[in-house]
């Protein structure tokens, strides 16, 4: 059985769903950021798979994946800085206890 586009797409859908579950179901802010990274990686796999199988000579999906990686790096730097700032202020990064902005 040869490996085709669908295999990669289904794999990245699985990875994205695992990341989605983690983002919704976890309380530790660092783990939520890790799950967001997982989702961004799944999207990258999709883009590179489309680039490989639909437009093999144009590499458009790979360029997009590079920009996604740039944005992900910026996001994780700022996100972890926010986590550290919150931890310094509240001594906790359990997001169920960070409810200063609630109502």
């Amino acid at each position, binding site marked *: 059985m*040869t*490996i085709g*586009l669908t*295999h*990669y797409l*289904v*794999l990245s*859908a*699985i*990875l*994205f*769903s*695992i990341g*989605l*579950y*983690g983002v*919704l*179901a*976890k*309380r*530790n802010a*660092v*783990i939520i950021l*890790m*799950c967001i*990274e997982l989702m961004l*990686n799944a999207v*990258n796999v999709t883009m*590179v798979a489309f*680039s*490989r*199988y*639909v437009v*093999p*000579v144009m*590499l*458009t999906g*790979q*360029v997009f*994946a*590079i*920009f996604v*990686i*740039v944005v*992900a*790096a*910026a996001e*994780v*730097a*700022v996100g*972890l*800085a*926010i*986590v*550290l700032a919150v*931890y*310094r202020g509240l001594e906790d*990064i*359990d997001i*169920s206890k960070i409810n200063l902005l609630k109502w």
Partner: protein
Amino acid sequence: MGLAIAFWIQAAVAVVAALGVVFLQNVFRTALSLILCFLMVAGLYITLSADFLAAVQILIYVGAISVLIILAIMMTREVQHGNPGSRFQMPALIVALLFLEVMVLTLINTPWPVSSASPTAPTTPALANMLFGEGGYLLVVEIAAVLLLSAILGAIVIAREK
């Protein structure tokens, strides 16, 4: 044939590592599991003949982002607290499974216009032409540089001791 074996091994390890990120209780092991998943995704890029992206994946994700995450885990001393679930575990599971079902059904039943052309072999020169050449993505590259600079400054300002 070798490509198929590589794909199945890497796909299985990536999914198991991703499940480890969600279900392992030790936060530090969670980070290591995430690094394993990043490595497997880099291997998948190689099976997709995206060699430059595989190198970028290893340099940025395995090298830099994982170090940042482990640093944040150390700084916040979250290792003792473990990896607790929120109140929304059951709804989150349902949402994730529904999303997965919809996505898989859509992806399998869509007739993708698959091209049979062989892929560009070394992607680095072609990618450089796309990014910096005529009619390419030069403006986006410049904006990405500005974004990275502002992200660095923002991270420093937010995380600085008062």
